[in-house]
C-alpha cells in the first residue's frame, strides 16, 4: 500500500471507530446492562445482531457502550501523556544544563521501570474510576515522548533562526512556542497518533486483567475477559468484536502515524 493510501485508510478507520465510540452509543435506547437470562448466549440473529452474553445482555449494545468507555478514557489519557511529554521535554531542552541533567536522570529512572508493572502496582493502590484511570494511563506513557521532544529541542535551539530571535530579545518561552513547537509539529503529530494507539492498548490490557474500567461499565478489554471465562462454550460472537476493535484501532493509529511520518518525515 502506498503512503497516501495508508494514511487515508488509517484516517477512515480511525474516524469510523470514533463514530462508533461517541455517536453510535446515542442510539442505544434501552439499558445496555439489563439482564435477560432467558436469552443467555444467543448466537447472532436478527433480533440480536451480535448475539447475547451469558447473562443475556445484548452484545451490540454492550460493544457500543464499551467503545464509549474505552475511548473516553484512552483519548484523554493520550492527550494528558502527550501534553506532559511535550512540556517536560521542552523544559529539559530549554533549561540550563544542570537542570536538564537532573530532569533527564529522573526520566531515565521512570523509563527503567516496566510500565505495565507500574500500572498494575498503582491500579492496586488507588480507587479505580474513569478519572483515576485517565491519570494513571496518562502519567505512565509520557517519558518516551519527553525524551524525543527534549532531544529535538536541543537540536533545534542552536539553529540560526533561534539565535536570530534571541538576538532580538526572544524569551525561552517565545522560542519554545513560536520556533520549537512549529518546527517539531510533524514529529509531535506523528507521535501523538501512536500514543492514542498505545493508550487504547494499555487500557484494554488493564481491563482484561480486571483493573481497568470497572463493572457495571464494560470496555473492550473487560468484554474480552468475560468471554474468555466461558471460552469452553465457544462464544465466538463475544470474542471477535472486541478483539477486532482493539486490533482495528491499533491499525488505524499505526497507519495514520506511518502515513504522516512518510509525508512529513523529511519536512524540516
Amino acid at each position: 500500500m502506498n503512503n497516501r493510501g495508508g494514511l487515508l485508510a488509517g484516517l477512515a478507520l480511525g474516524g469510523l471507530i470514533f463514530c462508533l465510540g461517541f455517536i453510535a452509543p446515542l442510539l442505544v435506547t434501552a439499558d445496555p446492562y439489563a439482564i435477560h437470562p432467558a436469552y443467555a448466549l444467543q448466537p447472532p440473529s436478527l433480533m440480536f445482531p451480535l448475539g447475547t452474553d451469558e447473562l443475556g445482555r445484548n452484545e451490540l449494545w454492550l460493544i457500543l457502550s464499551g467503545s464509549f468507555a474505552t475511548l473516553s478514557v484512552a483519548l484523554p489519557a493520550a492527550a494528558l501523556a502527550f501534553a506532559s511529554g511535550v512540556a517536560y521535554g521542552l523544559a529539559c531542552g530549554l533549561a540550563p544544563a544542570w537542570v536538564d541533567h537532573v530532569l533527564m536522570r529522573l526520566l531515565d529512572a521512570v523509563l527503567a521501570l516496566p510500565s505495565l508493572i507500574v500500572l498494575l502496582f498503582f491500579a492496586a493502590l488507588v480507587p479505580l474510576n474513569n478519572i483515576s484511570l485517565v491519570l494513571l494511563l496518562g502519567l505512565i506513557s509520557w517519558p518516551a515522548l519527553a525524551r524525543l521532544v527534549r532531544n529535538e529541542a536541543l537540536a533545534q535551539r542552536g539553529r540560526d533562526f533561534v539565535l536570530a530571535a534571541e538576538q532580538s530579545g526572544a524569551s525561552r518561552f517565545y522560542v519554545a512556542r513560536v520556533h520549537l513547537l512549529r518546527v517539531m509539529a510533524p514529529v509531535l503529530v506523528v507521535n501523538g497518533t501512536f500514543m492514542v494507539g498505545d493508550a487504547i492498548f494499555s487500557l484494554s490490557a488493564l481491563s482484561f486483567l480486571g483493573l481497568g474500567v470497572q463493572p457495571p461499565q464494560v470496555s473492550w478489554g473487560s468484554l474480552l475477559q468475560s468471554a474468555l471465562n466461558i471460552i469452553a462454550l465457544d462464544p465466538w460472537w463475544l470474542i471477535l468484536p472486541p478483539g477486532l476493535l482493539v486490533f482495528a484501532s491499533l491499525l488505524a493509529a499505526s497507519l495514520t502515524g506511518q502515513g504522516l511520518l512518510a509525508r512529513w518525515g523529511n519536512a524540516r
Partner: protein
Amino acid sequence: MNAVLRVENLSAALPRGGRDVPIVEGLNLTINAGEMLALVGESGSGKTIAALSIMRLLPPGATLTGGVWLGGQNLALLPESALRRVRGRDAGMVFQNPLAALNPSRTVASQIAEAWRVHNGGGKNTARVLELLGEVGIPNAAARLGDYPHQFSGGQRQRVMLAMALACAPKLLIADEPTSGLDPLIARQIMELIARLRRELNMAVLFVTHDLSVVEAHADAVQMLYAGKSVEWGSAKQFFTHPRHPYSEALLGSIARVGQARLHNIPGSLPEPEARPPGCRFAPRCAHCQPDCEAAFPPPSQFGATTAACFYPRPVQDRHAGVEALPVTAPRRFITQLQVQHLSVRYAGKTGWFGAKAAMPALRDASFSLGRGECLGVVGESGSGKSTLGRAILQMLPYEGQVLLEDTDFAALHGAARCARRRRLQLVFQDPRESMNPRLRIGEIIAEPLRLQGQLPQAALREKVETLLRRVGLNAQLAGLFPGTLSGGQAQRVAIARALAASPDIIVLDEPTSSLDVSTQAMLLNLLKDIAYTDALSYILISHDFAVVSYMADRIAVLHEGRIVELNDTAALIAAPRHAYTAALIAAAPQPRGV
C-alpha cells in the same frame, strides 16, 4: 596534439514532474593531453550534470544523447560492464566533499590501494600507495598509511581523493568543484597541485567550477555554460582578457577582486530548466539585448582564439578600461560607536558530570573600535576565531574582556535594558535557509524583531514588512510565502530585511555571500553597501574571502589562530601588508583583471 576526450553534441535530460527536462543541450568540447579545460557556470547551469554524463554516472531515468570519445571508444554506446573498466582506469574523478567520498571506517591506504586493485588485481601494493601519496604531497606518507580519513585535514583529504583518482594513471581527470569548501590558501594549493600533476603526468583535466577566479591562473581553455548551453569557449587567456559574450563579461565583472571600486550587477536570476527562454538564454538578463536575441539561439561566431554564441558580441576593450581603480582618498574618519577591549573566548570542552574541564582558547585578546557607518572586515581561515569574535560581540557567548556600545559596557546591563541594547546589534548568517524557521511565512520572519519589541497594530506591522521587503529589492508579495520557495539570494535578502527590522546600529555579517553564486554575491554586496550608506549602518563583515572583504571594508582585521595579527585601513593593508599571513591571503585572492 592528440585529443584525449572529445564530447560531441552531448545532451542530458532528467525526469522531473513526469516529463524529461533537458539540463545540458548540445555540449561540444575537446581536451588534449596535458591540457586543463575549465567548465564554468553558475549553479543551475548544468555543469555538474555535464561532467557526470561524460562518465554516464547520471541518476536513473536520465536520458543521454551524443558521443563521448575517450581512448578510441564511444562511452555513450559502451555496455555497462565495459564502462566500469573505463571508470577509474582511463578516467579518474574527484568531487567537492572529500569527507563524504571517503569511507570513514577504512584506512586511507586501503582505499587508495583498492582503487588500484580493482583494475590491476594484486595485493596491498604499499609501494604504489606510497608513491601516490608522495605525488599528491602528503608529508611523511609512510607513517600515515594506517590513518583514517578523519585524521586528515580538509585539504589533505582532497589530496587523498586525488591519489585515489590517479591510482591507475588515468588519461583524463574530471574534477568537480574540488576546491570549494576549502580555505582560500588550501584551495590555491590544491589548484596548483592539479595543475602540476596534469603537466607531469601529461593528463587531460576537466575542471568543473562555479568560480572563475579559481581557474583563471591555470586553465588552458574555458567553456562557459549558461542554462544548459555553451555561450563562450576557447582559449582561457583570451577569454579572461577579452570576453566577447555579454554574460562572460558581466560575470567576470561581478567577481570581487582586491582593490575593486564597484562590482557589476547582473539583474534577475538563472532560469529554471523548465522555463528556459526560446532564444538566447541570457537575453532576459542581458544589458545589450536586442529584439532578435529573443527569437532564436545565436549561432557561434569565432573571434580569434575564442568562440561566442551571441549576435552582438562585446567589443574588445582596453585591458584596463572598465576596471575602476580604488580611489586614493584619505581614510574616512568615524565617531566611535563600539569598543572591544581585550576580548577572549574559551570553549569549555566538558565531558559528563565528572569529566575534566578543558578550556580551548578560540579568541585571544582582541581589541578594536568600530565607528558609526564604518565597515570593519574580519578575515581569516576556518578555525581562526572570526565567527567566535562576531558572536561574542553579539553577546551570544560568554567572554572575557569588554564590549562597549556607545561607552556602556554590556556586562553592566541586565534584564530589559540589556535586551534593548543587544537588539541594536543584529546579524546575518552564512546559510540564509538555515537562518529562517521553515514553518514561518516570510512576513512573520521579518516581523519577528518588530513583534518582540512591542505591540504594533497588525496593519502597521504589515506595512513595515512590505517597506522592508522593497528596501532589500524584493517584491512585497513574498510576505505570504514560506522560505523554502526562495532562491539563495532572495533568502539572504529576507535575512537582511529581518536584521534591518530591529533598526540596528551594527550588523555582524558572518560570511553573508559564501553560499551564493558569483553574480548573486555581487548584487548582495552592492545592496549591503547602499544600505550602509543611506542608514549610516556599521558592519562587521566576517569572511574567508579577502577580495570580498577588501571590496566592502574601510578597515580590515586579519585573524590568525585566534589573534588579530594585523589591523589597518584597507588600502594601506593591501599596499603594505606587515604580517606574512596577510600577504599570503592577499596573494591567494583574485587579483585585478589584466594586471
